C-alpha cells in the first residue's frame, strides 16, 4: 500500500507535463479537468496511504530513484510515509483539489489559463515532494520547487513589472532562508553524517551526536529556512507582496500549503528543536513578534488580500509560537485548520474580487451581502473560524496554542491572546466593510456585481464545511474526553514528532477556553460596533494623520528599511566594485605588475643609450664587480 505513495506526486507532474506540452489545442474545461483530476487522483491515493498510517502502519520509506552519491553522502529520491507526511498529504491534495476546481472558474477568462493550471499542478507536485521527501535534501527539492512555482505564479501576469518585482522579491527572500536551511543541513551532515530522517530521528537517532553549539546552530539555521518560507520576521516582507498573483494562488500557496512548509520542517525536526532550548526560544519569540506585527498591520490594510496576507503572517507566527514551545502537534493542527479557513477566506475574497471586476480595495466595496450570498456566508464562516469563536476549527487550534503558552510563558500567553483579539477585530472589520453597509464602488461595478459560478462556490462551501468541523480532529482534553476523541491528532502524530509535556488539568483548560472565547467575542463586538453599528469607514490614504496609523499602513516601513540597509547598499557595493575596485584595484594590480618590466626597461634605457662609452663602462664595471669578489 505504501508503495503507492510514489504515485501521489506523479499525477500532478504528469498533469503539468501534459498541459504544458500537449495542452495547446485543448478546451479550457478539459484542461481544468485534467489539472484538478490529477490532484484528485493524488487525493484518493493520499487517503489510501493515510489509512495505512491510521491503522497503525509503521513509518516506511519508499525509494524511487538513486539520486546523489558522494561518499557517505548518499541521498535517494525516496518518500517517507508516516503520520506527519500523510496528514500533510491529505490537506495538500484535498485543499489543492478544491482550489484547482475553483481556479477553473476564477481563471476562465484569462489567456494564460493553461499555464495557470499547469503551474498549479507543478506546485502541488513540489509541495508533495516537500512533505514526502525522506531526507532534508529531498525535502529541499520540494522546498525550492514550491518557491519556484510561487515565483512563477506571483509573476503570472508578467506584463506588469510590479508583479514581476513581487515575484522576484519572494524568490530572493526565500533564497535567503534557503541559504540558512542549506547551512543547517551542512551542520547536521558534518556532525552526524546523515541527512535522512529515519537515520537522524527515527531509528538510530544520529541526531544525538549533535551537541553544543552545533546543535543550536543547526536548529537556528534550519529555522532561518523556515523564516523565509513561512514569512517570519525579518523575512516576512515578501508574503504580502505575493498577493500580486491570482487569488487561487494566494489561497493555495500563500495561505494553505507552501507557507506552512516551515512549520512542517520544524515539526519534522522536532527532536532537534526540542533538544535545543536556545533555538526553541528563538522560534517562540520570532513567532510571537511576527504574529503581533502581522496582526497590527492587518488592522489598517484596505486591500482585501493584503489583510488576509498579514493575517496569514500573523497566524504563521502563532504556529511558530507553538513550535517554539514544544507543542509540535498543535502547530500542525493549526496548520490544518488554518489551511481550511484561510483557503476559504482567500477563495472568498477571490470570489469578491471576481464579482467586483478586479477591485481589491475594501473602501470601494460594501454591502456585498445581498449580491453574493454564498460567498458571504462562507466568508463569514471563515471569519468566525479564524477569529477563534467556538466551535469552529480555528478556535480549537488557537486555543491550544494559547494554552500551551500559558503553561510555559505568561508573557507569550498575554501576547498571543492579544494577537487573538486583534485577529478577531481585523477579520470582522474586513467582513463588515466588505459585506455590510452600502456599496461604495462605481456604478459600473455595481451593475456587474454577481455571485460567482458554481465551480467557484462549491469549493467555498466544502471549505466552509471543513472550517466548521476541522477542529474536531484535535479536541483539547476538556472537550475531548467527553466525546471520546481527545487529541486525536496528537496521538496520531506522536510516532514522528516530539510531544510536549503538558499536563494541564481540565479546569485550567476549560477556563482558558472560556477566556479565549470571551476575548474573541469582545473584539468581534468592537469591530461590530465600529464598522457595523457606527458604519465607520476605513480612511483614505491621504486622510491618515495619526503617526501610529501611518506606521501601520506603511507596514512599519520595513520594506523601506530593507531597501535602505540591504538592497541599496548591495547595489551600491556592486556598482562601486564594478566602477572602482575592478578596474582600479584588481585590474590595477595586474597593470602595476605588468608595468614592472616597463620600469626595468626605463632604467635600462639609461645605459642602453647608443653611446659606446656607456657600453664600455658597463663592461668594465662588470669586470670590476666580478674581480672585486676576489679581493
Amino acid at each position, binding site marked *: 500500500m505504501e508503495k503507492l505513495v510514489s504515485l501521489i506526486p506523479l499525477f500532478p507532474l504528469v498533469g503539468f507535463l501534459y498541459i504544458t506540452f500537449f495542452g495547446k489545442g485543448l478546451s479550457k474545461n478539459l484542461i481544468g479537468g485534467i489539472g484538478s483530476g490529477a490532484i484528485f487522483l493524488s487525493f484518493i491515493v493520499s487517503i489510501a496511504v493515510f489509512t495505512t498510517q491510521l491503522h497503525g502502519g509503521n513509518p516506511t520509506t519508499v525509494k524511487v530513484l538513486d539520486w546523489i552519491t558522494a561518499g557517505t553522502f548518499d541521498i535517494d529520491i525516496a518518500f517517507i510515509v508516516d503520520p506527519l507526511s500523510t496528514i500533510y498529504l491529505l490537506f495538500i491534495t484535498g485543499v489543492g483539489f478544491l482550489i484547482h476546481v475553483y481556479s477553473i472558474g476564477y481563471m476562465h477568462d484569462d489567456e494564460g489559463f493553461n499555464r495557470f493550471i499547469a503551474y498549479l499542478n507543478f506546485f502541488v507536485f513540489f509541495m508533495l515532494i516537500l512533505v514526502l521527501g525522506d531526507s532534508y535534501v529531498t525535502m529541499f527539492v520540494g522546498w525550492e520547487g514550491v518557491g519556484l512555482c510561487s515565483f512563477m505564479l506571483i509573476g503570472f501576469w508578467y506584463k506588469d513589472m510590479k508583479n514581476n518585482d513581487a515575484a522576484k522579491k519572494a524568490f530572493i527572500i526565500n533564497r535567503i532562508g534557503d541559504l540558512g536551511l542549506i547551512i543547517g543541513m551542512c551542520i547536521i551532515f558534518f556532525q552526524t553524517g546523515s541527512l535522512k530522517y529515519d537515520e537522524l530521528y527515527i531509528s538510530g537517532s544520529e541526531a544525538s551526536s549533535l551537541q553544543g553549539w552545533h546543535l543550536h546552530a543547526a536548529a537556528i539555521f534550519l529555522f532561518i529556512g523556515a523564516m523565509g518560507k513561512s514569512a517570519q520576521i525579518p523575512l516576512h516582507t515578501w508574503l504580502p507582496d505575493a498577493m500580486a498573483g491570482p487569488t487561487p494562488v494566494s489561497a493555495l500557496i500563500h495561505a494553505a500549503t507552501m507557507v506552512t512548509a516551515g512549520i512542517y520542517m520544524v515539526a519534522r525536526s522536532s527532536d532537534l528543536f526540542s533538544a535545543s532550548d536556545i533555538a526553541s526560544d528563538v522560534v517562540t519569540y520570532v513567532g510571537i513578534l511576527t504574529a503581533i506585527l502581522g496582526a497590527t498591520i492587518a488592522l489598517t490594510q484596505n486591500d482585501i488580500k493584503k489583510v488576509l496576507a498579514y493575517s496569514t503572517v500573523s497566524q504563521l507566527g502563532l504556529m511558530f509560537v507553538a513550535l517554539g514551545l514544544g507543542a509540535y502537534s498543535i502547530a500542525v493542527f493549526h496548520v490544518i485548520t488554518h489551511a481550511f479557513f484561510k483557503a476559504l477566506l482567500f477563495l472568498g475574497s477571490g470570489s469578491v474580487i471576481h464579482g467586483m471586476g478586479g477591485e481589491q480595495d475594501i473602501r470601494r466595496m460594501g454591502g456585498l451581502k445581498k449580491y453574493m450570498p454564498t460567498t458571504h456566508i462562507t466568508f463569514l464562516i471563515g471569519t468566525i473560524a479564524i477569529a477563534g469563536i467556538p466551535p469552529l476549527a480555528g478556535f480549537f487550534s488557537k486555543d491550544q496554542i494559547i494554552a500551551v503558552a500559558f503553561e510555559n510563558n505568561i508573557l507569550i500567553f498575554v501576547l498571543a491572546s492579544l494577537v487573538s483579539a486583534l485577529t478577531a477585530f481585523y477579520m470582522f472589520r474586513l467582513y463588515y466593510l466588505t459585506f455590510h453597509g452600502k456599496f461604495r464602488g462605481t456604478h459600473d461595478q455595481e451593475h456587474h456585481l454577481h455571485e460567482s459560478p458554481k465551480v467557484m462556490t462549491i469549493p467555498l462551501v466544502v471549505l466552509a464545511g471543513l472550517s466548521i468541523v476541522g477542529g474536531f480532529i484535535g479536541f483539547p482534553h476538556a472537550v475531548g474526553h467527553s466525546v471520546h476523541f481527545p487529541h486525536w491528532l496528537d496521538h496520531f502524530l506522536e510516532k514522528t514528532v516530539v510531544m510536549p509535556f503538558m499536563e494541564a488539568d481540565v479546569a485550567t483548560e476549560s477556563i482558558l477556553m472560556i477566556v479565549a472565547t470571551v476575548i474573541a467575542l469582545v473584539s468581534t463586538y468592537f469591530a461590530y460596533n465600529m464598522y457595523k453599528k457606527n458604519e465607520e469607514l476605513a480612511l483614505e490614504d491621504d486622510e491618515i494623520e495619526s503617526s501610529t496609523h501611518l506606521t501601520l499602513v506603511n507596514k512599519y516601513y520595513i520594506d523601506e528599511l530593507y531597501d535602505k540597509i540591504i538592497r541599496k547598499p548591495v547595489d551600491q557595493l556592486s556598482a562601486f566594485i564594478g566602477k572602482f575596485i575592478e578596474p582600479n584595484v584588481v585590474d590595477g594590480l595586474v597593470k602595476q605588475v*605588468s608595468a614592472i618590466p*616597463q620600469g626595468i626597461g626605463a632604467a635600462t634605457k639609461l*645605459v642602453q643609450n647608443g653611446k*659606446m662609452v656607456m*657600453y664600455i663602462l658597463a663592461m668594465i664595471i*662588470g669586470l670590476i664587480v*666580478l674581480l672585486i669578489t676576489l679581493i
Partner: protein
Amino acid sequence: MKELIITSLLGISILALDIVKLRKAILPVIILGLLGTITSCILDWGHNENPFNNNMLLFDNYALGFIVILSAVTLVWFLISTDHFSGSESRTDLYALVAFSFAGAMILAAYTNMVMLFLGIEILSIPMYVLAASNKKELISNESGFKYFFLGALASSILLFGIALIYGATGSFDLPTIATAITTNGSGTILTAGLLMIIVGFAFKVSIAPFHFWAPDVYQGAPTMVTALMSTLVKGAAFAAMFKLFATAFAPTLDFTQTIFVVMSIITLLASNAMASIQANTKRLLAYSSVSHAAFMLAAVMLANTISPSVLMYYVLVYSVSSIVTFATLYHISKAQNGAEGFDAFKGLVKRNPILAGAMTLALLSMAGIPPLSGFMAKYFIIGAVIQADQIWLAVIMILSSAIGIYYYLKIIMAMFTPIENAGRIVITDLQRILFIILSIAMVALFFVAAFVK
C-alpha cells in the same frame, strides 16, 4: 678534421670561382660543401675520439653534433637568403666571409686548446664585423659594424688577458691539462681572475648582461639576414665553445662560477625582456629576445657538469630554426615596404603571405615556449635542470621572463592577424616557400623527437 678542411676550402673556392667568373656555380658549391660537411660528420659519428694535431682539435660527438647543427643552419641560411645579396655586386665576398665565419664556428665546436679557441673566435668574428657593416651606404649598418668590431676587440683583449692569467696559473693552453692542473693545485686568485676575465669575454660574445649592450644595437643595424646569422651561427658556436670550456677545463671551478652565472642570467633575463617589451621596432625586439635566450643557454653552461650537452645542442638547434624564420620573415616584410620594421609592417601578413605568417607564428610561439612547439621542450630542459640544481629563483625568473616574452612575441602575432586594406602580396620564391614549410614542420617535429635529448 675533414670537415674543417672542406669548409676552409669552401671559402677559398668561392673566391676562386668569383675570380674565374663562375658565379652561377657558387651557390651549388656552397650547398655541396655544406652537405659534404654534414655527410662527413655523420660518417665520423662515433668513430673519432682522438684529438687532432697535438691536441688542437677534437672531433668527438659533441663537436660533430654542433657542427652538423651549425652547418645545417648555415645551409638553410644560404638558401633562404639567396635574394638578400642579389643586388650586391660583390656578394661573393660576403659569401666567402660567411664560409670563413662558419669555419671559425667549426673550430669553436672542436677546439681543445686555448690557441684554437682564440683563433676560432676571431675567425668567427672578424667576418661578422665586416658583414654587419656590409650595407656600406647605410649609416646604421656602419654604426653597427663599428660597435660590433670595437667592442668585440675590447672583449677579445679581456678574454686574452684571462687566458694569459690562466696560463700563468696552470702553465698550459691545453684544456684537459688545465683541468688537471686546477684539480691538483686548486684554484688560486690569479686563476680565478683569469677565469672571470674569460667569462667576461664569453659573456660579451654570447651577449650576457651586463656585457650585452652591443647586441641590440648591432643586431638592429646589421642587414637583417646578417643578424639572422649572428643570432644563430655566432651564438651557437660561441655557446658550444663556452660549454666545452666549462665542461672540460673549468669543470672543477663550476661550483664557484655557478653563482656568477645565476646572477648574470637573472640580470640578462630581466634587462632583455624588459627592454624587448617596450620595443616598437621588431628587429630590435628580436635582438632583445635573442639576448634573453642567451640567458637560458647560459644556464646550460652553468650546469655543464651535470647537464648533458645535448640539451644545449637542442636549444641551439631549436632557437636557430625559429630565429632564422623570424629574421627571414622580417627581411621579406621589411623589403616589401621600404625597410619598415615596426609592428605595423606585419599587419595583414596572414593575407599577404599565409606561409610567411604561418611560419612566423610558429617560430614566435616556439621562442615563447608554448607546446607543442620545440621551443617549449628546449626551455623545459633548461628549467628542469635549473630546478634540479636547486636554483629555484633563477627558474622563477626564467618563467616570469618567459611570460613577458609571450607578451612581446604575441604583439607581432597580433599584428600579423590584424587585417588591413589593399595589401599587396609579398612574393617569395618557391625555394623559400619550401624552406619555410620545412622549417615550420621542423619546429613542431623537434618537439616530438625531443625524446632523443639525453
